[in-house]
């Protein structure tokens, strides 16, 4: 789905992918970070950093509050030409206390702000991060392996999507309503399984997956759901050939972008959580496929995408209780979904009763809660 909610989610993902702010170090881990730490001295009137240029990657700011007031430190990135995007922050640094703030920084321009008294814009100082490509959150080879495995999965889904979309588009352009209906849901499965990554490619998501309810005034409606409405309401496909061609072209754009997609352990983990959010907010409610009622096909694809993300991150997670809980929760969701299978697909969501929808919502909540812990446990 693309909606205002979905787009916010995409923006959040992109931000995390670029600048995964790692868990702030606690005092116990401060010593090991001291060697490469950047001293940041905050007073009531100054915000002194001992370096103004850094290479891309993980950095620790050793913050010392030598002022008389409680302070907070922000790292701001550019958003719309202004330094307003919070990359990371630490509040409540008391007078005379220190704090190590670790952050993963991508190349670009930043501003550091100290805010004595914890109010206002603060005292700002410039910071430039140099280098190529994205920040590497961890040198851990297991993390690199996870990112690589997930990229292979996403590429495989994108590759699989192109011919499926082509077959759907061909039926639409031929005016073959029944054939197009039968190919509609399948053409969306790869998209739904990698949607958080697809959403990070800017306007691809609204072009391909916008719902009618989320159209803004003056916006042209394109993508799957425009065709879905025509197929399941009037059956009149005249004039939709350009929309269909655009969809096929966009599928190829997506396919070509995967090799350079910004992926990190954090973005994969957050993507899994976002897939469950999708299920919870638009599939269980039946909002996504308002005309075709093929929501359960999307539901299954979202779950499979989340499960794949979990599979590649699993080796990075040491919290065995969380793993046990996630394994059981994925199984519970699949068990509930399997009850609605019909032939090679699923029953129409219009036939799923309120108590059945409630049962689906319950297992989705049961998975969504532990899945929201995955990112922090994996980085």
């Amino acid at each position, binding site marked *: 789905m693309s909606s205002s909610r979905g787009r916010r989610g995409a923006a959040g993902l992109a931000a995390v992918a670029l600048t995964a702010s790692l*868990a702030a170090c606690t005092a116990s881990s401060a010593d090991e970070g001291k060697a490469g730490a950047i001293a940041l001295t905050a007073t009531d009137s100054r915000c002194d950093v001992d370096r103004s240029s850094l290479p891309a990657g993980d950095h620790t700011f050793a913050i010392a509050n030598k002022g008389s007031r409680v302070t*907070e430190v922000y790292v701001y990135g550019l958003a719309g030409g202004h330094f307003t995007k919070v990359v*990371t922050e630490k509040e409540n640094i*008391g007078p005379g206390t220190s704090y190590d703030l670790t952050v993963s920084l991508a190349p670009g321009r930043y501003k550091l702000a100290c805010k004595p008294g914890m109010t206002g814009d603060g005292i700002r100082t410039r910071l430039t991060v140099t280098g190529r490509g994205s920040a590497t959150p961890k040198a851990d080879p297991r993390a690199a392996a996870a990112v690589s495995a997930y990229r292979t999965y996403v590429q495989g889904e994108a590759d699989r999507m192109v011919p499926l979309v082509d077959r759907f588009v061909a039926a639409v352009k031929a005016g073959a309503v029944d054939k197009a209906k039968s190919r509609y849901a399948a053409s969306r499965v790869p998209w739904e399984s990698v949607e958080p990554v697809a959403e990070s490619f800017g306007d691809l998501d609204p072009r391909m997956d916008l719902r009618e309810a989320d159209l803004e005034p003056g916006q042209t409606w394109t993508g799957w759901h425009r065709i879905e409405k025509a197929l399941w309401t009037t059956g009149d496909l005249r004039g939709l050939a350009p929309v269909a061609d655009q969809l096929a072209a966009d599928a190829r754009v997506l396919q070509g972008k995967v090799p350079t997609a910004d992926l990190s352990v954090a973005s994969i983990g957050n993507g899994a959580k976002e897939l469950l959010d999708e299920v919870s907010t638009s599939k269980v409610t039946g909002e996504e496929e308002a005309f075709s009622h093929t929501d359960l096909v999307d539901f299954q694809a979202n779950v499979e995408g989340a499960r794949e993300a979990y599979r590649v991150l699993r080796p990075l997670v040491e919290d065995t209780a969380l793993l046990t809980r996630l394994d*059981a929760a994925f199984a519970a969701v699949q068990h509930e979904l399997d009850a609605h299978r019909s032939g090679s697909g699923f029953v129409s969501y219009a036939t799923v009763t309120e108590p059945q929808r409630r049962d689906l919502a319950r297992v989705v*909540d049961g998975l969504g*809660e*532990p899945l929201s812990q995955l990112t922090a*446990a994996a980085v």
Partner: protein
Amino acid sequence: MTESRDRSQHLSRRNLLLGAGAVGAAGATGAVGAAVGNAATAEGRPVRRVVPFHGGHQAGIATPVPGHLHFAAYDVTSTSRADLVGLLQDWTAAARDMTAGHPVGGPSAASPLAPPEDTGEAVGLDAANLTLTVGFGPTLFDERFGLGARRPAALADLPAFPGDMLEPTRCGGDLVVQACSDDPQVAVHAIRNLTRIAAGRAAVRWAQLGFGKASSTEADAPTPRNLFGFKDGTANVLGTDPDALHNQVWAQAADGAPWMAGGSYLVARRIRMVVETWDRTSLAEQQQVIGRTKTVGAPLGSPHERSAVHPGSLPAASHVALAHPSRHEGARLLRRGFNFVDGSDGLGHLDAGLFFLAYQRDPRRQFVPLQQALAAHDAMNEYVRHTSSSLWAVPPGVRPRGWWGDTLLA
């Protein structure tokens, strides 16, 4: 989750508000007691309005009734007994935090990449006399958890009463949590966080918000009014009356289920009041229906609210006459109901009424015969509709190292 807690990291929500100094000194703030008695901050200032969580009986029964209610019934969605036990243990840990005015799990934002453990909307609020009371429904004793043989005889399914208009989606539940507080946001925060903790193990079946307590358990407190505009609960069992509590409210080991000793049985009924027709009814008729005067609350024909009730001298079908203990072998109830308004019913009428909550030692000789008499004859029936009905066994209080239901499940 709960095992890794460092209790010394706990802050009262009040301290969080005090700002950076307090947070920076999290370690120094020290263990802010486990909610026994009045906890105190590091500065020595008392955190007011704390009802002790631990004790021989659960709080929220005989303790004073605060102004707001959030009541939630849950279905256990797991079939694993270990999950049920784990849930009750996690709930107990969270309840210790919240009833003391602390956020769940201590200070939030341990990792910016993880969601905060506490949802946050009660930061800056004190406990506001929050009590959390847990009960077990008859369905918990089916085949899933091997508890069939432990089901108390007093937890017999309630019979159907004449005139009931029950909505199945508002009835029953394997578990129940009653959250009472003087701040509605604190009560809602508690249920919201317990529900989140339950994900994958239990899910909300139905829930009810209530306000403006409709009964008091305090001798010196003015009797509250229900939405009929009448005083309700003048003859309630008081939390300060040990004999009445012993005889009418607390289950005893000798009653047949030793694990329930010190517990009680809770009947919940959502009673929709047809307030529009009631409001068009003459004062004389309203008073005949209730059996008391509207303004003073005195039994009809008597001068004072506390005048002795002689049921024989009241209208035979009046509510007070029919419910009088002398007609039910002395049976009384500890009522702690709340008024509710769930918006409008779509016809322009208030969807409002009384969320009736009554604690007792044995429903078979207390609520059931009483309600049978009322359902058959009560003149009030014209103005009420019972839309939900449920019964729970409320286990005894939690010991400092114990957890809800340990006398049944440990």
